[in-house]
Every structure is written in C-alpha cells, then in structure tokens.
C-alpha cells in the first residue's frame, strides 16, 4: 500500500489578498510517494510548510489543489466518517504539539484509538501496556497527562499514535522534547515499525533523526526535493 501525492499545491493567502490578490505558495506542485517499510524525513527551515505537508498527507488539512491517494483511493473522495476511520485504523498521527485528554490517565489516553476502533470497548489492549514499556513511561500509566513532563507527554502521544499498529505513521517533531537517550528509544521503536512494514513520515529539524531515515527530503520555496 502506498500513499501517493500528486500535483499538490497549498497557498498561504495573504491578508492583503482582497486588495492585491497576492498569494504565497507554501507547497508548489508536489508529487510524492510515502512508501511502507521505510522512514522518510522532511527537513527545511521554519515556516517552510513541513507540518502543513504532513497534515495534508494524513488528511487533516485539504490542499488548494492536487490529490492524495491511499492505494488507488483518493482520500478526498471519502466521506468525513470514512476519512476518520482511515485515520483511526490505518494512520497513526503525532502532532507537533503534545495534546492529551486531561481527564483520563495516561494508559487510557494511549488506548483511546484502540477503544474507538473496537466500537467503544473500554478494555485496555496489551499493545498499550507494551508501548508504554517500550517508551519507558509504564510507571506513569495511572497519572493524568497534566502531571507529565514535556518529554513524557511526547512519548505518550507517540505511543497513542502507534497503538492500532497503523500502516502509516506521521510524526511531527517526534524528538523535540526528548533527551538523547529517549530520542534513541523513540527512533528505535519507529525503525522497528518501519521494518515491520509501516510507512513513516517524520518532520524534524533534529539531526539525531537523520541516521534512522531511509529517505530525506527538504522543502524550500514550496518545492519538495529529495536530498538523500
């Protein structure tokens, strides 16, 4: 299964657009394929559109033009609920900002996508416990997200993105709050997922990610270019 991007265009509409009709291209005619079984890293200066690209790819944002295909299916031809199901069952997304559901403990946060996938079942799956172990935060499983540090929160969000064993994983700055040791732990987990067949897109400035990436792209002036 491939996730393919064709002719993707995204514009930032200037606030003075109504007067001058001026538009700044963030992403310009991008064609891209996210392959399963490898880690793809996107790098680029701040504000170049890396996160926008990631959000478009996982169906959270809609581009001005172009299409995203999951297999042969355009994700924009899916209904809202079909797209939600795709995100829940096939995609694992970790946003740039760490956001937890503050009212439920860490283990339930991690288990949320699994519960939702199983029609609201509230049992905790083994994978949730396993992921907390892998990320070294199993001792915090009964804490509320508000009680976690930035790094712990980051790992919780990553564990949550992985709990349904998604085909594609999208991680925006997954190592930004982590020390070297935890960066290695996280990247090793992601590498293993890639080995098991997941397609992983990582948006990151972090040079520590670079050794784990199978492909590296950069976005500059709206153009996506492979550099490795």
């Amino acid at each position, binding site marked *: 299964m491939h996730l393919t991007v064709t002719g993707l265009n995204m514009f930032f509409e200037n606030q003075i657009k109504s007067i001058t009709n001026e538009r700044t291209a963030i992403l310009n005619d991008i064609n891209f394929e996210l392959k399963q079984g490898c880690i793809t890293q996107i790098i680029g200066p701040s504000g170049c559109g890396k*996160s*926008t690209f990631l*959000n478009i790819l996982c169906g*959270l*944002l809609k581009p001005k033009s172009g299409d995203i295909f999951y297999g042969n299916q355009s994700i924009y031809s899916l209904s*809202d*609920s079909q797209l*939600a*199901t*795709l*995100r*829940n*069952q096939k*995609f694992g*997304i970790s*946003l*740039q*900002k760490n*956001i*937890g*559901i*503050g*009212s*439920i403990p860490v283990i*339930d946060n991690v288990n*949320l*996508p699994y*519960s*939702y*996938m199983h*029609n*609201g*079942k*509230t049992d905790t799956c083994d994978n949730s416990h396993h992921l907390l172990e892998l990320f070294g935060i199993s001792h915090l499983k009964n804490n*509320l997200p508000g009680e976690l540090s930035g790094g712990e929160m980051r790992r919780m969000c990553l564990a*949550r993105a992985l709990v349904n064993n998604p085909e594609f994983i999208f991680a*925006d700055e997954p190592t930004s709050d982590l020390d070297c040791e935890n960066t290695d732990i996280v990247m090793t987990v992601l590498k293993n997922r890639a080995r098991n067949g997941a397609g992983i897109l990582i948006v990151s400035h972090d040079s520590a990610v670079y050794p784990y990436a199978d492909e590296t792209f950069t976005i500059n002036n709206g153009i996506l270019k492979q550099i490795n």
Partner: protein
Amino acid sequence: MNILQKLSVANTFHKSRRTVYLTALTIFMCFLMFSGTTVVMGLHNGLKQLQNRLGADIIVIPKKEAQKHSFEGILYSGKTGYFYFNKNIFNEISDMEGINNITAQYYLASVGADCCFTEVQLIGFDPDTDFIVKPWLQKNYNRQLLKGEVLSGSDVFIPDNGILKIYNNDLKSVGILERTGTGLDSTVFVDMETLKTLLRSSIDLGLNDYNVSPDDVVSSVMIKVKDGYSKFKLTKEINKRFKEVKAIENQDMIKGFAGKLDTAAIVVKIVVAVIWIMSLLVMHIYFSMSLNERKKEFAVLKVLGFTNKSIYAMILYELLIIFSVSFVLGLLMSSVWGLQLKTYLETRLEVPFMYESFSSYILHGGVAVAVSLLLSLIFLSGSFIRTVRMSLFSVLREVD
C-alpha cells in the same frame, strides 16, 4: 459504558468547577421552569375547582353581605362567616319562572372557645333539594348524611375520636372530602336539621350575632336555570323584586378573582420567561467559553479518528449527566418551595390554589423542565457544532 460515555463521565468529574457552575445554572433553570409551571397550573386548577364547586347559575345572598364580599371569603380563602335572610324570599323565588333547580344553604361558624373543638365554617344543606353539595359528597360518602353526622373538608383538623364538638353538640365525623384547593377545604358539611340545631345552640350560648329562628331563615339560595332561559334576566328580575337580597351570576361571583388569577399567572409567566432567557444566555456564554478551552481536546480526538458525530455525542452525554442531576435537584427544590408558596398564596393573597395529584404534578412539571432542557440543548448545540468543526483547523493553525 462505552468509551464516549467513559470520557464524558471523566470530563464531568475532572473539570469539577466547570461542572458545578453549569449544574448550578441548570438547577436554577429547572427550578424556575418547574415552579413557574406548577404555580400557573395550581392557580388554574384552583379556579377550575372553584367554578365546579359553585355549581349554580345564580347565587342569592343578603345584599349587605354581597357588598362585604363575605361569601367570596368563605369560598376562596377559608374565612368563616354567616348571614341569614328571610326564608319567604326563598319560597317566592322558587315560584318564579325559568328555574330548573333551587336549594337553600345555611351557614354558621364555630368559634375558638370551650364549646367548640376549633373555629370552622359550617354549611348546612337540604338533602331533598340540594344539587350543589350532594353530588360532590356522594363521591366521598356514598350514603345519606344523618342528623349529627358531618363530612369535613380536607384541611379540617379531626380529633382522634372522630367527634367534633360544636356549640356543645357532639358531631360525628363520617368522612373527609377530596381536596378542592378552595375555602371549602376548611368547611364542615352537615344536613339542614343538624345545622338548625347548631344555630339554636349558638344563639342560646349568646355566641351568634343574629337572633333568628332557624326555621324562618336561610343563608343563600342556589339556582340552576332551565335551558332556554336567560340567567341575566332572571338575576335582574330577582334583584328588582327583592331589595334585601342580591342575586349574582356565577361568573360574576368569580370574575374579579379570575382576573386576579389571570394577572398573577401572566406575571409569573413573564418573570419565568425573562429569567429563563437570561439564564440561557449566561449558560451559552459559559458553555461557549468552556468549549473554547477544549478545542485542543476535540482536535486530538479528531486526529485519533473520532468523527464529529462521536464528539457531539460525548458532549451530549456530559450535558445529559449535568441536566439529569439538575432535573432531580431542581424538582426536589421546587417541590419544597412549592409547598411554602401554596401556603403563601392561600393565606396572604387569598388565592385558591390547588396542586393536582402527585403523579400529575411531577408529570407536568417534569415535561416543562424536559422541554426547557431540550430547548437549552438546541440553543447550545450551535456552539458545540461550530467549535468541534473548527477545532482541528484552529489547533493546526496555532501550531503552524
């Protein structure tokens, strides 16, 4: 419990301050709706009962008493009173044309002294001609009332031995009448002969303002007009022929009162509506603010694959938890307050007030509260649909 319900419960308890404020506001709304509805209904029922109890098309009482509104006092607010006029007038009215039924009633009031068990209004009726009291009494007491027996209104205190001492006569209580919400609830009913005996005793004891022969007087005359005859003409005719008495059509008897009740009901409705709308606005502002705080939470749920519909369901569960608690507490509070209010309306404002049966009271109040909550929900739904829809966009934009 599925995951959405679990999240709702967790959210409700986690944000306890938000929950308490929102619950307090909805309790206030429930209380207001329930109390308002029951007050308006209680007034309406009181009036309906009063109309039913009057039963006659025309009532004839002494002119002086009509001016003093003594009869209204007996009917509406349980004030005691008695008055008499010459029985010949009754006999002469009986011979007039257009009368279908006619009966006389006799009034007497016991006093708060040793000779009487308590101060109470007594009404005597003639079992042979009565068409006002008897049908009502028969519902509660399915046989002829004998001499020395009484039927009591629901608010009359009955001693344990069932004996009511009135002007040193021992009367036996044989039944309690169903509630009417009018002054008749504080009344004791006896047959004409018993009342005459009591009247004689009161005069003998020097406790009656009148010195009359019981066989020569009546207190009021009740008339049911034949079909096809005009109540208005007959009333006019009686008033023209007999200067000592005043004939009053039944609707005129309660007209002033009905107007008073209508005004009270309208004021209650307006006050309830204004406060309800204000509460709804406050609730809307508060709810929108709290939803705004939760944009990130909704965004992350969408990222995890929750549909908008699921998120609406989760918010709906939260509101249902708050609304259910408010519903129960609001009902309890307004029930307690309702009893205080009833006493106030009856005693201070002299308004006949009647609650229906407990089940109907709960049903009507409950329906009013449920409708009010449903309207609130519809009113609030706009905010939460908008917030959930925009949540993802605003969080991603914030990040980018």
